């Protein structure tokens, strides 16, 4: 039995907080800032922060695939869009409009899309997976764009926000502050669930697929099933982001189902740091903030995607682990 010098294992005289304690203290601090922020921010930036959280949720859902299962999805716009249209359908068809039914319908829509995409594209690996997810998302785009009677075609659907309704406790119109808190609650819950999932035995299998798929199969795991599960799970959270976006902006539009949304999702992931779950939210914040500042500085017509695209390429070459990549192991422990 080898023994390390005692003071290296357990430093004497200094009390050190455990990793868990530091994590939750940091978590609490960030949460406190995000809860208090809308009370001090002006209206525009309040909405801006809420949207960053929604985009962050979309990117985080995609991180489950990119960072943990090792599959890059270029089709997340389909799940996001189906969530959006599902919510819109529920809000328009059922009166009085109900927030929770909107979420349910949105999730059902996203789950349907995710089942379809997962069934076909998980037969393929790596780049083939990326391409087929892209093509499948375009199928949904074409359907939504051309099926004018149900989806409003190019014009999309417009509706009014439901009440924030919690049975027996609370029932009032959304204002931008309660909207922010609601979104924050959903995103935080999603983060905690996803974090739990990635640390569970199921998540370990996903990571082992990322590291070595043939070996995972040889050990006896049904790789295809795990992949389908991860695509479905990822699609559900992307759909949730779509529902939130629809409720926040009171519309569903076909250009959110278009490929560019999926592209943005991938960019958020790479900039923020894949495999960290919080990184994509940071990436979304960085991207949206840079976009806002660039267009304020150089005018609305400024092609902000040129400098941001160059930043993206440079990051892939020189900093592929992203802004939060240095903390990846620590965050996932």
């Amino acid at each position, binding site marked *: 039995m080898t023994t390390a010098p005692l003071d290296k294992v357990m430093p004497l005289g200094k009390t050190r907080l455990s990793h868990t304690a530091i994590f939750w203290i940091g978590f609490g601090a960030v949460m406190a800032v995000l809860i208090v922020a809308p009370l001090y921010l002006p209206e525009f930036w309040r909405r801006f922060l809420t949207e960053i959280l929604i985009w962050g949720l979309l990117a985080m859902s995609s991180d489950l695939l990119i960072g943990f299962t090792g599959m890059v999805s270029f089709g997340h716009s389909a799940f996001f869009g189906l969530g959006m249209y599902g919510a819109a359908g529920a809000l328009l068809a059922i009166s009085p409009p109900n927030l929770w039914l909107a979420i349910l319908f949105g999730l059902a829509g996203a789950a349907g899309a995710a089942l379809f995409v997962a069934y076909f594209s998980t037969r*393929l690996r790596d780049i083939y997976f990326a391409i087929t997810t892209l093509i499948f998302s375009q199928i949904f785009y074409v359907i939504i764009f051309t099926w004018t009677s149900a989806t409003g075609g190019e014009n999309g659907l417009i509706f009014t926000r439901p009440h924030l309704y919690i049975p027996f406790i609370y029932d009032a119109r959304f204002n931008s502050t309660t909207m922010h808190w609601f979104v924050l609650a959903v995103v935080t819950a999603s983060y905690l669930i996803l974090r739990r999932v990635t640390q569970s035995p199921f998540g370990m299998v996903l990571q082992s697929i990322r590291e070595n798929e043939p070996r995972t199969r040889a050990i006896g795991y049904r790789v295809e099933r795990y992949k389908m599960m991860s695509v479905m799970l990822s699609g559900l959270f992307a759909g949730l982001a779509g529902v939130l976006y629809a409720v926040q902006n009171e519309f569903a539009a076909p250009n959110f189902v278009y490929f560019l949304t999926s592209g943005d999702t991938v960019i958020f992931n790479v900039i923020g740091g894949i495999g960290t779950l919080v990184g994509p939210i940071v990436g979304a914040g960085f991207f949206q903030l840079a976009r806002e500042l660039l267009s304020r500085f150089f005018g609305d017509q400024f092609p902000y*995607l040129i400098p941001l695209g160059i930043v*993206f390429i440079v990051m892939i070459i020189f900093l*592929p682990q992203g802004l939060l990549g240095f903390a990846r192991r620590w965050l996932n422990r």
Partner: protein
Amino acid sequence: MDAVGHFFQAIPIDLIIIQTINGIVTGMILALIASGLTLIFGILDVVNFAHGELFMLGAYVGVIIITATGSFWLALIGSALVLAILGAALQIVTLRPLIGRDPLNTILATFGVSLVLQNYALWQFGPVSRKISEPMSSHFTLFYLEYPWYRIVIALLSAAIIGGFWLFLKYSRFGVWIRATAQDRVMAQAMGIPVPLVYTGVFAIGAAMAAASGVLFAPLTGVDASMGLDWVLKAFIVVVVGGMGNLGGSIAAAIFISLLESYAAIWLDPSQAVIVSFVVLILTLLFRPTGLFVSTPR
């Protein structure tokens, strides 16, 4: 018997012949794009997301040269050369540092390139599509249509470029290098073939082929900054259906899918006819995931 007779009478023979020709013409353009894409994939192991943007930029460069000189054929050659140089530069700057990394990195990098190029084109040339006239105005009569000869010329020229490229692969020294690298890059390197140069050259050739098809296609619908994505998606479908990295397969698949789409356009709205190629893709993935036109499933 009567019902059968009615059924055959209901098929518009003239429309089918016209759509067959249309399908072959777009199929040849698609084949030209897809063969560059599949070549880059076969040699570099890179799925080039920016391929549609190279096609689009090639068309724009063609438009610029035509307005400057007035010669379509000069534009065709000039645009291919300009895009070959641009392609080589892009490969050296963005893809060479990624050799040996996870292939997913290269998809992301080419995706970034496509984003930059597309937004550059939008910013430089504006959202209004540019029209150029067909280089030859003669027509021939096809049933009730005045069918432009130019479309036939497109198909023939595309076939000639692909054929020339095949001869180049088969007989030139550089072509032999390319095939050797495709077979076994480590061995090729050991035999003294400059593999990094082959990579750059292959990317440049692929870009030039995309540019040539862009210029050929430009007179048909006009040029705008968003045309790249439509075509690269079609080319991706073709490449998957034809079998990744398989040149003959992607040419066959390009014509097959374009024919199906143009037949579907007889009965459907053109924007819905796209669904046909999606269905072909899904069926291929279900039953022959390695590609329809691959002789032995790997």
